[in-house]
């Protein structure tokens, strides 16, 4: 069986390193003939996934990103070795609530879910793997 081509990145926990990931995703999206709209959605979701991994996992080392290319989709895994979290315990943010709250942040998970076609988390105290998928259209 043919193995899907995979691009692997290892990012240190440094400021704006998420942009290294988006540069890679743009090249991969172009290779896959994805639309500019889909490419931008992938980049935006990736930025949020990296920020979550950098900040909320409290990992002190690097994070890992795997881009798995197939004929009909791009699968991206963002892996950290941080403290883990329960995605179901994160409340859905609402702009009306945020405007009167001291806590304005907390949008990442919602944005990722809205921008990608499929999103899944596996998380425990040894780390988190976020898997997100963008499907190709038949005409792409």
């Amino acid at each position, binding site marked *: 069986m043919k193995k899907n081509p995979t691009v692997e990145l290892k990012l240190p926990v440094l400021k704006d390193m998420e942009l290294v990931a988006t540069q890679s995703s743009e090249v991969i999206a172009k290779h896959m003939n994805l639309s500019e709209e889909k490419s*931008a959605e992938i*980049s*935006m979701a990736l930025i949020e996934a990296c920020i979550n991994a950098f900040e909320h996992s409290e990992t002190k080392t690097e994070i890992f990103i795997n881009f798995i290319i197939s004929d009909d989709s791009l699968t991206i895994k963002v892996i950290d070795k941080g403290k883990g979290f329960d995605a179901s315990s994160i409340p859905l943010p609402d702009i009306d609530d945020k405007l*009167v709250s001291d806590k304005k*942040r907390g949008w990442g998970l919602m944005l990722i879910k809205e921008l990608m076609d499929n999103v899944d988390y596996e998380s425990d105290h040894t780390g988190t793997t976020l898997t997100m998928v963008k499907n190709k259209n038949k005409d792409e």
Partner: protein
Amino acid sequence: MSKVINTESKDGLIIIYTDGYLNKDLGEEIQKIAYEHIENGELNFLLDLKQSNIVNSIGASILIEIIEKLQDVNGNLYLCNLAPIIEKTFNIMGLTKYCKTFKSQSEAIEELS
């Protein structure tokens, strides 16, 4: 490096021009400039994002702080020249419920002045 590249007063609006990634640093720079103008009683802002085609939710959250501050003083934040993905992101967040967006600066000025 992202930054505010210019600020000008035009037709009753304070126009803030940005360049690059709308992240925490750029959001805080916009916030500092906006708050200085609010102290001077200038309450209507147009953020021109023509040269910013990427954003993160931390930068966007700082815009929510600015909107909250402006609500307290009956001011307004408007946005123009948004890249499609930034507009989509702000729509998902509901941010555009509280700050009107315009395709171009000229369209904004024509409607607001």
